[in-house]
């Protein structure tokens, strides 16, 4: 004859297997939702099945909760006992508040840093979104036009490149032109840029595009040569000054 204990043994094995197949028991929040009837019938069935595999957990929900003890009963805490417990609780509360205050302060600092870095990021993005001048045209006047005492051509530091337009006469009497830019800070002056493939505008001016970082702050001389066959003549010179940015 089949007995309850025999069936219990088999059921114990079935439940142990269910613990493995059903995964971890439901969380306290899921169980609370179950007991409050906040789940759909399908969800309830699922929670029930997972819980039944853990009878000890079901017991936490079903064991009758004790009735309160009335004053005078031995289970009712005396003034003295309560005072001792209350003191311990207050201490625990203070510790908890201290820890809470620490995390609040930590949170406030983290929030402030987030605001500061957010602001910096926002500013950087705004700067990046601003229209950037790729270059700015710089009309250059030759040393002969400015006179010996005249101010050198000062290159403005805007844009990523210089667009230099040295003014030249329309008839230069040369087949080709070459331009050198010399760094005057060293002796003898050193050529830092040179080209013989230079574009000219309709009024005869040259058009030279230079990357900004190719000219460090200092004094330079731009020399234009006219080349005819093997002959090379200096046509014009332009003193330049690159200010510090």
């Amino acid at each position, binding site marked *: 004859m089949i*007995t309850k204990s025999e069936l219990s043994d088999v059921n114990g094995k079935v439940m142990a297997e269910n613990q493995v197949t059903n995964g971890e028991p439901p969380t306290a929040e899921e169980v609370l939702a179950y007991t409050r009837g906040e789940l759909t019938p399908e969800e309830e069935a699922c929670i029930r099945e997972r819980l039944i595999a853990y*009878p*000890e957990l079901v017991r936490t*929900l079903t064991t009758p909760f*004790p009735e309160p*003890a009335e004053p005078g009963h031995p289970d*009712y*805490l005396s003034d003295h006992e309560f005072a001792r417990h209350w003191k311990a609780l207050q201490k625990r509360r203070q510790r908890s508040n201290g820890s809470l205050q620490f995390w609040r302060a930590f949170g406030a600092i983290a929030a402030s840093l987030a605001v500061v870095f957010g602001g910096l990021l926002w500013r950087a993005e705004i700067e990046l979104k601003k229209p950037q001048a790729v270059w700015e045209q710089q009309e250059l006047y030759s040393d002969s036009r400015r006179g010996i005492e005249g101010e050198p051509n000062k290159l403005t530091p805007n844009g990523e490149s210089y667009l230099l337009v040295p003014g030249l006469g329309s008839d230069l009497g040369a087949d080709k032109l070459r331009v050198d830019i010399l760094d005057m800070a060293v002796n003898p002056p050193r050529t830092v840029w040179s080209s013989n493939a230079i574009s000219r505008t309709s009024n005869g001016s040259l058009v030279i595009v230079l990357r900004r970082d190719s000219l460090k702050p200092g004094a330079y001389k731009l020399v234009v040569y006219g080349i005819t066959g093997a002959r090379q003549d200096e046509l014009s010179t332009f003193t330049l000054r690159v200010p510090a940015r």
Partner: protein
Amino acid sequence: MTNDDRFQSLYRKYYKRMVRFYVLSFRVTEEDAEELTQDAFFRFLEAMDEYRGDAEWAYLETIARNVAYNRIRSQKTAKRGAETVDIHDRNAIAEPAAPAEPDYAQREEAALRSKQLRDAIAELPAGSRECMQLWLNEFTYDEIAKFLKISVDAVKSRLRDAKKVLRARLGDANALPEVEE
């Protein structure tokens, strides 16, 4: 009545009984039970300001059950990991003496019977199976009814049905005496 007064009243009425509740229901030590009770009351105290209902004892009960649930659940989930054994501990790794082995025919018969019982339990309708499984774990009708959110009569009826099905399925008319009314 201030929050502190209300708290004091509940604390004095429930403290000792909650300790006993934890000891008897969840088989924890007296020390653990005191810790759980204090934890429950501490949470209750922290949450009292936000509680808007009148039945504060019911709120305390929910917190107390929740504390017990979390404690047991964390023990269960910890147990799911691999068990560690100190290899230097002779007692820990010593194999118990093997019991006298039943002969092959007896083992076969036991395995077959076990399979029949498992299949029979598995094939019960869900409602009956749940009642049966809780009953086999020594839950009372009241407890089963509370957990399944049905009446005690419904629990008894489902258990009767489950036993009928099992008797028929296993061909054992005398199995599992009827539920005591």
